[in-house]
């Protein structure tokens, strides 16, 4: 069905307003994603601390898990820096 240009424009504005209302622009959405991802990675590290309390002596498997989580955290914080400081 043909939609007049001004009607399509109105729809687009409504759409972007809605998206903006919920999520902001694309840049800040990615920043928010990274904040949550980093907090979730930290949560996994927190659980590792709980599982190994009180000595926090990690076995090989736990050490590998900690390394992987810390690498992810570094990447997530790096992306956050990129998004928020550009």
């Amino acid at each position, binding site marked *: 069905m043909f939609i007049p240009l001004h009607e399509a424009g109105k729809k687009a504005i409504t759409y972007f307003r809605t998206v903006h209302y919920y999520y902001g622009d694309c840049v800040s959405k990615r920043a928010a994603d990274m904040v*949550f991802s980093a*907090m*979730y990675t930290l*949560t*996994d590290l*927190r*659980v590792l*601390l*709980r*599982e190994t*309390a*009180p*000595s926090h002596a990690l076995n090989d498997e736990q050490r590998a898990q900690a390394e992987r989580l810390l690498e992810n955290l570094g990447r997530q914080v790096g992306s956050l820096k990129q998004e928020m400081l550009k």
Partner: protein
Amino acid sequence: MRCGAGIDARMVDELAINIDPIQAGGRLTADAMKAVIAYGDGYSVCDNCRTPNRLDYISKPPIAEFHKDLASWLNMDAARVVPGARRGFQAVAHTCVKKGEPVLLTSLSHYTEFLAIEEAGGVACEIPANDRHIVTADAAAATIEDVKKKHGRAPSLAFIDHVDYQYGNIHDVQAIVKVAHQYDIPVLCNGAYTVGIMPVDGKNLGADFVVGSGHKSMAAPAPSGVLAATAEQAKDVFRTTAITGDVTGRKFGIKEPEMMGCTLMGVTLVGMMASFPHVKERVKHFDRELANNKIVIQALRSIGGTIVLSKYPRKHTLTRVDTTASFDTVAQAHKKRGFFLSAALAEKGVVGIIPGATRVWKFNTYGMTTLQAQYVAQVFVDIAAENGLKIS
């Protein structure tokens, strides 16, 4: 480190092994912690609340589905989330009990069951536990007969603890329900220490109501819990509002008075939901928890004079011990007196027993790794040895 003015960050479980008897089963899973981060704001689950505007109808996040899953998992017909098991007791007592009516509970019942009866205007009638701290069907039958003689009628409700909070003993709910039903007494099974810890099948138990605690046994934030009912009882306890405003003529849709409308509207519910898949899985492996408990119990029993007051061998990880003839003898001469035990444990990274307790105290090994259980066992033995107690 602080998380607000005057509020220290709580790192109890990160820095030590926590054997607190009531905290073990409520420690959050990683997914629940993540849910707490995302849903900490007040009415956070209400973003997509649509007509008929009731919590258990919300489909995003999948709260409606969670309610169905909860009921099905407990093998009951309907379930609602409630702000703690005590609010489940309250709703049921308020529905089933009229002023002056006798209500059964046990000599091991939690105080909130008494308060629920009191608030409904009922009269508390305790079934005495036997000398092994077990509530039996025979004792229930005898108490019902006594109540009939004294009050001229059978009790209008019975609260029976699946596992009691004092000894962590399992009671034969199924047999007690059979007795109670012979007198048409509906039974509420208090699963505060079992729902989320070990398998609970409401229909198999024959219970009319099953109540669980989210923060005690379902790895959920406080206050949270579940009230599940049979279809017959659900009609009453989950009845919908009929009230109308006399000036405005307002009505309130399908809100449920006993639930005071919506119950858990944010982080408590989503935390509970996030832990639920893990909780469903962990109840299948309760034997592992008992194996860890055994490691600690064996160590304690090796310390001369220590008595396990809970039923032995243990069928639950919550355990009550008497160390009057062991650690308390040390306390008599120790400069820290009764605080020596909790202090010595804390020095070695084990926390959770009541400071000052050296006679009768409780602990819970639920959720420990086997390495942690071995560590706790060794710590008890080491403290005993360091203080001159005999180890066998």
